[in-house]
């Protein structure tokens, strides 16, 4: 079997308009980054709220957060995506349903579903990290803040969270990287992100190995650069003499 290696394939025309395969990758990468950032913002905000809820001295509040985490952690991401994409729109009130199914173009509706899905899925994991971070702090911190007359929200906002976030930067980084990797499920509901464009390139050009090599390289580079970036941030926000950072 002879396979025609051709690394210049990315600069060739796809036969669709005047686009080259490289253009496909660029647009795919754009969607991947877009999905990931929006989903991450949702995850970070919701996850932090849930994480705080899990540590609050109130049974009902912490139970709500626990139920949320267990639910979103124990259902496969793909099932969740199908639920958001196929099932939830059917449950919407009629006028919203019409808007989602008819007025929105298919790409936008897929994008909406995937960012909501990924955001809520990741929030459960962020929640666990935030909770771990808060619980890792010495109990004396909360008592000291209470002794100074802070109210509970002030304790969290001024004392606990600023310390907890610093501790959990490494695990949060890996969650962020997971969002990038998980965003590839969007290809299964027809959103042309990086993986979908890779598949399409492989099929159109018959240069399967080149197509996937480029995709892995992009994911790999993205991962590594984000990791380095987060390490910089970690150093930047480190409190001198409090938490040891990187190095070792």
């Amino acid at each position: 079997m002879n396979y025609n290696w051709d690394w210049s394939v990315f600069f060739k025309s796809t036969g669709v308009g005047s686009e080259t395969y490289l253009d496909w990758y660029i647009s795919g990468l754009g969607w991947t980054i877009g999905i990931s950032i929006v989903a991450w913002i949702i995850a970070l905000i919701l996850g932090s709220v849930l994480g705080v809820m899990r540590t609050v001295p109130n049974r009902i509040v912490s139970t709500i957060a626990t139920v949320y985490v267990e639910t979103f952690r124990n259902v496969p991401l793909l099932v969740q995506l199908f639920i958001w994409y196929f099932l939830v729109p059917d449950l919407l009130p009629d006028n919203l349903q019409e808007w989602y199914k008819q007025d929105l173009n298919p790409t936008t509706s897929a994008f909406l579903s995937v960012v909501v899905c990924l955001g809520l899925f990741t929030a459960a994991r962020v929640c666990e990290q935030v909770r771990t971070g808060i619980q890792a702090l010495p109990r004396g911190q909360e008592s000291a803040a209470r002794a100074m007359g802070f109210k509970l929200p002030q304790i969290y906002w001024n004392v606990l969270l600023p310390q907890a976030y610093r501790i959990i930067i490494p695990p949060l980084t890996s969650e962020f990287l997971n969002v990038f990797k998980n965003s590839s499920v969007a290809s299964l509901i027809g959103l042309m992100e990086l993986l979908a464009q890779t598949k399409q390139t492989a099929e159109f050009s018959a240069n399967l190995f080149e197509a996937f090599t480029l995709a892995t390289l992009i994911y790999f580079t993205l991962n590594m650069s984000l990791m380095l970036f987060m390490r910089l941030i970690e150093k930047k926000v480190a409190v001198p003499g409090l938490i040891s950072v990187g190095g070792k």
Partner: protein
Amino acid sequence: MDFSGVIPAIPGLWNGMIMTLQLMVMGVVGGIVLGTLLALMRLSPSKWLSRIAGAYVNYFRSIPLLLVITWFYLAVPFVLRWITGQDTPVGAFTSCVVAFMMFEAAYFCEIVRAGVQSISRGQMGAAQALGMTYGQMMRLIILPQAFRKMTPLLLQQSIILFQDTSLVYTVGLVDFLNSARSSGDIIGRSNEFLIVAGLVYFTISFAASRLVKLMQKRLAV
């Protein structure tokens, strides 16, 4: 919502679940074997072995599983043709199992490595002082202790893989999720079947992780 169509579909769903479990078990077993080898390479005194294993782990941990599944599905037949020189038909099942094994090995490697490193250095010294070779020390003394410690983590990772097997949807393999999707589509009740699928996955994963937690508590005592 009408769930009455679910009962007659149970045999089909059951077959799908068998497929899901097969994928998971083979992925876990292969992944642990390969991952242990990788961990031993990473911890070995040889710089080169350690670097190769490190590169493998870094590589597979930075790309999506879905990409690995898709790529292997398309590439394994090609590669086999190069090796054997003839058309060797490879089913989607085989390529998916290979993908899971190789992908999970990277994650299992890190678990095993941490497990081995958690065993005190004194144990290594004692084993060596009794005249054991590196291989005997690892096989008889270090790994048995490390595996005991990391069983909960290995099981948790297996539960994650149980959920992730649903990604074989992309190559059309009829696992549990896909059998639920198609059973639902046939009778026009895809939403109901989606809910059932979600509930089943939830129940199994939730129960399994509860068991792992119980076990962890037992081990800690």
